[in-house]
């Protein structure tokens, strides 16, 4: 082992020996008046705890950095030089003790994300040979060795080692870490399974589709790890500041020496002005905040996004899939033809190529109807579908689509459509060969916790809430009113949503946009903070500034609260660090602070900022009360 490793192994015994020597020296000096043995003990204690500090100081200098260790080294050696052995021993010992406690608490603060990384699969069972009548041979391999296309066996209670598709067998997988879904999900042939999830029961054979760093699980981990190192503007500023501040302290001490001609005052300046708490205070807040979020299914993408998100004063929501369940159902059917089954079947054929949520609802509704193949079908953006089915011309869409084709609405249909819209339903008209034949009312249930959490975010002081949707205006208004969202706009195309967001930003608002991440990606990208509700889909993870594992509004409210608390802790830490240094320096020039006492207070301030950050890891009391 290199001597760096030895240094690490010996650090603790050295620290305690130095402590013991200091106690011994104090006993000799104070009560027995044995000055020489006392000084010898102090000197030994200084050597034991001071040499490692000196070592680190020199190491940093080799990287052209003036470190805090250098300040402390100069101070301690200086104290020695003027015969203040007790001061130098105390300063070195306290600094080492402080560093030790700092490491311990840092470890604790970082450990929050360990619960996440521990879910990583370690091994996998690869099927090497398929015999007759379903018999097969397996070998156990490292999870890292799984390659795309490998066929894997997942046993009951086993972890799934890669993202993939089930080939055979069935079982229930617990996917909370990826999708946030608390109940285990049934998996059978053709279903997608995620790496890092657990097969609660059953057994599966699967083909690996994404492996290693490309799995959703690995992406989530990488995101959190990178986030903890990603610095906010405040932190970058502090880093730059510390780079110049630390050498400046040496100059300040030199100036004090020249002016006062007192070495002890000058070296005390070195100790008191250490920026220790300042450089650690801001990053530790982010590490704790991000770690806490990771435990709760809220992934904050670094200091930058925490800061911007915390400043949110305008929340803009998309409707479908964000405030509503996203699985709309046909609830009303009005016929204006003698052959409704035929009209519905033609509409279903036209909708089959569309991925619009309303189209999906119609397809589910028409599952029983005869199935036709459309001869041609095309999407008219923001309007609906045009298709030719069984040589008949079918139009499925909104009123705008009918107007484009010059089809007039019968008076009854017009009345019934308005009534449905007033109730908050989306409406779809079906026309065959230029005649309106059917009206469908489709509605989408609101998410159960939507109203409650919107109220919560309002109470948190988010001033402006806005609902933007492509759906009809009255359905949008109905949803907005039901949730207590004061402002809403309907019948918007994706570029309209983008324009609204730009307009809000031009007014100086800090906008958070919450959408489904599929058809509103321009708005998502343009907003200050974009959040895609996608339950672990790649789109949601890549496009969001804040990723919510569970796509619900409680996570959103919680994320906002966490971001704000993190920023508050960060500023508290900076204030604490700056005021400690200011008070100590003021105390020094008033003549009442000694070097070792200064070091004690200084180390205490470092521990104080770490402990303050650790508050973020404690679950809030309010939440416990809510969930007895």
């Amino acid at each position, binding site marked *: *082992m*290199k*001597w*760096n*490793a030895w*240094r*690490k192994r010996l650090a603790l015994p050295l620290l305690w020996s130095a402590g013991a020597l200091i106690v011994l020296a104090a006993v000799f000096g104070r009560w027995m008046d044995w000055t020489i043995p006392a000084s010898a003990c102090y000197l030994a204690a200084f050597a034991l705890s001071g040499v490692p500090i000196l070592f*680190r100081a020199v*190491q*940093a200098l080799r*990287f052209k*950095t003036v*470190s805090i260790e250098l300040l402390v080294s100069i101070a301690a050696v200086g104290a020695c030089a003027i015969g203040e052995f007790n001061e130098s021993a105390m300063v070195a010992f306290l600094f080492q003790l402080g560093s030790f406690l700092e*490491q311990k608490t*840092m*470890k604790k603060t*970082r450990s929050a*994300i360990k619960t996440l990384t521990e879910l990583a699969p370690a091994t996998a069972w690869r099927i090497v040979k398929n015999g007759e009548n379903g018999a097969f041979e397996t070998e156990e391999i490292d999870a890292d060795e799984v390659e795309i296309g490998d066929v894997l066996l997942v046993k009951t209670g086993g972890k799934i080692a890669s993202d993939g598709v089930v080939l055979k067998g069935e079982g229930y997988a617990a996917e909370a870490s990826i999708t946030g879904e608390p109940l285990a999900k049934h998996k059978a042939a053709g279903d997608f399974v995620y790496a890092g999830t657990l097969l609660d029961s059953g057994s599966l054979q699967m083909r690996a589709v994404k492996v290693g*760093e490309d799995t959703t699980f690995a992406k989530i981990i990488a995101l959190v*790890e*990178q986030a*903890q*190192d990603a610095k906010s503007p405040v932190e970058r500023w502090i880093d730059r500041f510390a780079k110049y501040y630390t050498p400046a302290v040496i100059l300040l001490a030199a100036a004090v020496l020249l002016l006062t001609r007192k070495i002890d005052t000058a070296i005390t300046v070195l100790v008191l002005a250490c920026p220790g708490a300042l450089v650690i205070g801001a990053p530790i807040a982010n*590490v704790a905040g991000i770690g806490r979020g990771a435990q709760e299914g809220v992934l904050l993408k670094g200091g930058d996004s925490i800061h911007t998100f915390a400043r949110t004063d305008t929340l803009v929501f998309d409707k479908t899939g964000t405030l509503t369940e996203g699985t709309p159902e046909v609830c009303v059917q009005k016929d204006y033809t003698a052959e409704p089954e035929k009209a519905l079947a033609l509409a279903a054929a036209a909708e089959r190529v569309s991925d619009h949520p309303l189209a999906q609802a119609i397809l589910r509704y028409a599952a029983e109807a005869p199935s036709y193949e459309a001869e041609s079908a095309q999407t008219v953006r923001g309007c609906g579908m045009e298709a030719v089915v069984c040589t008949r011309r079918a139009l499925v869409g909104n009123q705008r689509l009918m107007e484009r084709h010059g089809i007039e609405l019968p008076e009854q249909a017009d009345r019934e459509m308005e009534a449905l819209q007033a109730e908050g339903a989306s409406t779809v008209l079906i026309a065959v060969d230029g005649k309106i034949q059917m009206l469908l009312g489709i509605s989408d249930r609101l998410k159960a916790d939507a109203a409650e959490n919107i109220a919560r975010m309002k109470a948190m002081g988010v001033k402006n809430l806005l609902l933007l949707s492509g759906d009809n205006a009255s359905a949008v208004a109905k949803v907005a009113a039901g949730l207590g969202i004061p402002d809403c706009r309907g019948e918007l195309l994706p570029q309209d949503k983008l324009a609204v967001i730009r307009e809000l930003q031009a007014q100086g608002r800090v906008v958070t946009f919450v959408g489904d991440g599929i058809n509103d990606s321009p708005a998502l990208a343009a907003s200050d903070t974009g959040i895609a509700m996608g339950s672990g889909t790649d789109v949601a993870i890549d496009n969001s500034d804040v990723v919510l594992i569970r796509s619900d509004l409680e996570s959103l409210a919680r994320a906002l609260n966490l971001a704000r608390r993190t920023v508050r802790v960060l500023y508290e830490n900076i204030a604490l660090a700056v005021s400690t240094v200011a008070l100590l320096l003021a105390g020094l020039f008033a003549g009442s602070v000694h070097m070792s006492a200064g070091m004690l207070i200084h180390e205490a301030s470092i521990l104080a900022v770490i402990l303050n950050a650790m508050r973020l890891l404690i679950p809030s009391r309010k939440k416990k009360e809510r969930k007895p």
Partner: protein
Amino acid sequence: MKKTIQMEELVCPMCAQKIETALRKAPGVISATVLYNASKAKVEFDETQTSLEELMRVITALGYEIVR
């Protein structure tokens, strides 16, 4: 080739910087980043010039242990 090396817990930002610099200087390394809080080194290297074992030795030579 891209690989991630998990090291023992890094306790000072200086350590992270030191490892990063050493890795970048090692022959065959295209890029290297050390994630301080996660104590991980992500290296991209030319496998005809160096190997994962070789890069792990660079880290252990600085006195840091490798977890996996």
